[in-house]
Every structure is written in structure tokens, then in C-alpha cells.
């Protein structure tokens, strides 16, 4: 048990966690985080720094758990009354969170070359923009009756 806790909290670069980290040949070594070398800084580093190759299974399980929890949250929200106009934005936000989770970590975009992010993000941006405009104009664009 204590061993497991050690694994969860201590990061020595080769542990079961095997959090994504900067390789020694990383041209831009990450700055020291103000929180220091705690487990939290590992997570922050994961989320804030790219340029590393891949993570370990523990990290993937954590992301998977995170995704499952959000899914549960979404389904739970479905049954909650009284969210009113907030329901759709909240759900869209949650699904965007899941989307980013899968793309960034499962698809390694967070750790991979920026070129892949550019390629994917540019099409996402164009797609989201044009289809949002389409929905918007169909919803609000109309001719006034005489």
C-alpha cells in the first residue's frame, strides 16, 4: 500500500506513473514550476509542457477515469432539473473537455510535434467557424414580413 502511494506521489522519471516529461535533448527544457517537485507539479507539467514523447499506462488510466467521470457527470446532468439555459453550454463544455482529453493525451497531440496540432486544429477551427456561422445565420437570419 505504501508502495502504491509512493508510486502515485513520487516521480523519479521511470516509475509506474511514467508521466510525460521532457527528454534530455528537449531543446526547450521546462521552467521550474513554482509549486516545486510535488505530484501536482507533475500534472501541471503534463498539461503545460509539450515536447515529450509519451506517457505511461498509469497516466492513461487516469485520463480514462477522468473521461468516465465526465461522462457520468453528463448523464447525471441530463436528469437534473432547473439548469435552464445553462444546460446546453455546460454539456458542450464538458464534451469539449472530453474531446480535448482524448485528442491531447490519447492521441498524443500534447506530446507530439506541433505540426500535427496545426494540421488538426486548423481544420477544427475552419469547421467550427463555418458551421457555427451556418447555424447562427439559419437561426437568426430571416426577412421581416411586410
Amino acid at each position, binding site marked *: 500500500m505504501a508502495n502504491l502511494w509512493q508510486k502515485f506521489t513520487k516521480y523519479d522519471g521511470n516509475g509506474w506513473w511514467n508521466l510525460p516529461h521532457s*527528454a*534530455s*535533448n528537449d531543446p526547450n527544457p521546462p521552467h521550474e514550476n513554482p509549486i516545486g517537485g510535488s505530484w501536482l507539479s507533475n500534472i501541471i507539467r503534463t498539461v503545460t509542457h509539450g515536447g*515529450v*514523447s*509519451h506517457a*505511461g*499506462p498509469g497516466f*492513461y*488510466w487516469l*485520463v*480514462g477515469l477522468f*473521461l*468516465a467521470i465526465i*461522462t457520468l457527470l*453528463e*448523464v447525471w*446532468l*441530463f436528469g437534473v432539473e432547473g439548469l435552464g439555459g445553462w*444546460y*446546453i453550454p455546460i*454539456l*458542450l463544455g*464538458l*464534451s469539449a473537455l*472530453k*474531446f480535448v482529453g*482524448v*485528442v491531447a*493525451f*490519447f*492521441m*498524443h497531440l500534447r506530446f507530439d*510535434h506541433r*505540426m*500535427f496540432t496545426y*494540421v*488538426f486544429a*486548423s*481544420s*477544427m477551427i*475552419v*469547421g*467550427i467557424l*463555418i*458551421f457555427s456561422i*451556418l*447555424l447562427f445565420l*439559419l437561426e437568426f437570419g430571416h426577412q421581416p414580413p411586410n
Partner: protein
Amino acid sequence: MTQAVTTQHHEPVENTSTGLNSRKLLMWAFLGSDVMFFGAFIATYLVYRGKSLVGPYPDEILNIPVTSVSTFVLLMSSLAMVLGLHYVKEGNRGKATLWILMVVVLGAVFMGFQFVEFREFAHEGLTPRTNIFGTTFFILTGIHGAHVTIGVIWMAFLAYSSHTGKLRPDNALDLEIAGLYWHFVDIVWIVIFTVIYLISATDGAPAGVERVIHG
């Protein structure tokens, strides 16, 4: 990748202008293309939300609990996918095969859910021809289902390759590229689940249209 130079994480650096593998770049560009494909279908669904002239309407027919389970299944298949890739890169053939096979199984279970759902809807009187909800719903989820089916077949081949030892750390890229496709299919479903099921599940008849109760 004879001239590949590896870093300490065994990530090959390709002998290309960008240092990136061409096939992987191709897959990412293709996913960008697929974004527009699904984007157009999802936009169509949203435009036609609540425009059905006759029932059954979403609030009569969508089954959130069941779909939540199938959504969870597909989400977990993504986890299995990424674990499979990890073990392939590690050279752990047994675990790799197991997790890739898990992807196949979970993908197949998802398809099973969809098949049952489609049959159930047809039984309750909703087909692509019934109303605009049926049209947009079936074609969008059906196209997604076709993507899943292709992914399942692809993964089955890779599971077999892994089993026979032909999928090794040095060609883990084959799996990684297939994995990108698989994860993409998963994120499309994340959007579909939110947009079609959670947000639209309470959609009823549009104002001014008389609701006919369907048995």
C-alpha cells in the same frame, strides 16, 4: 525507417523535411478532412433539430441510459487502444495483443448496441424515411457506425499481427496510425452523444404540430 534516429524514448525521427513520419502526417491531415465531413453532418442535424413534422420525436424514442453505456464502452475502447500502443512500444506482446483485442471487442459491443438501437427504433416506427429527425439521426449515426466498423476490421488485423509477433516496437507506428483513426471515431461520438442524445433528447414536436402518440 532504416535511417531513423531514435531519441531515448524510441520515437523515430524521420528523414523528412519536418522530421515527421509522412504516414502519420497523412493520417492527421485525413482526420482534419474527416472533421469537415462529420461537421457537415452534425451541422445538418442541428439545423433540423426540432423540425420534424410527424413523430416519433426524440423525447419519445431516445434511450439515454442505454446509449450512456455504449458511449462508455467506446470511451473505454480508446483507453484500451492507447494501452495497447504503449505495450506494443514496450515490446510486451501478450499485453499488447490483449489490449488491441479489447479494442476490437469493445468496438464490436458498441456496434451491437447501435444495431439493437436501430432495430428498436425501427420497431417503434422511426426509420430514415419517417421524419427529418429519423433522416438526420440515422444517416449521422450510421456513417459513424461505418467508421467504427472499418476501425474494428482494421484493429482485428492489427490484433492478429500483434499475436503473430509481426507488430513490434519498430513498426508500432502502424498501430499508432490506426489508433489515431480509432480515437478520432471516439471523439466524434463524444460530440454526437452530447449533441444528439443529451441535448436533443427532450426535443418534442415543434410548435404548431400536433403530436400523435405512437405505440
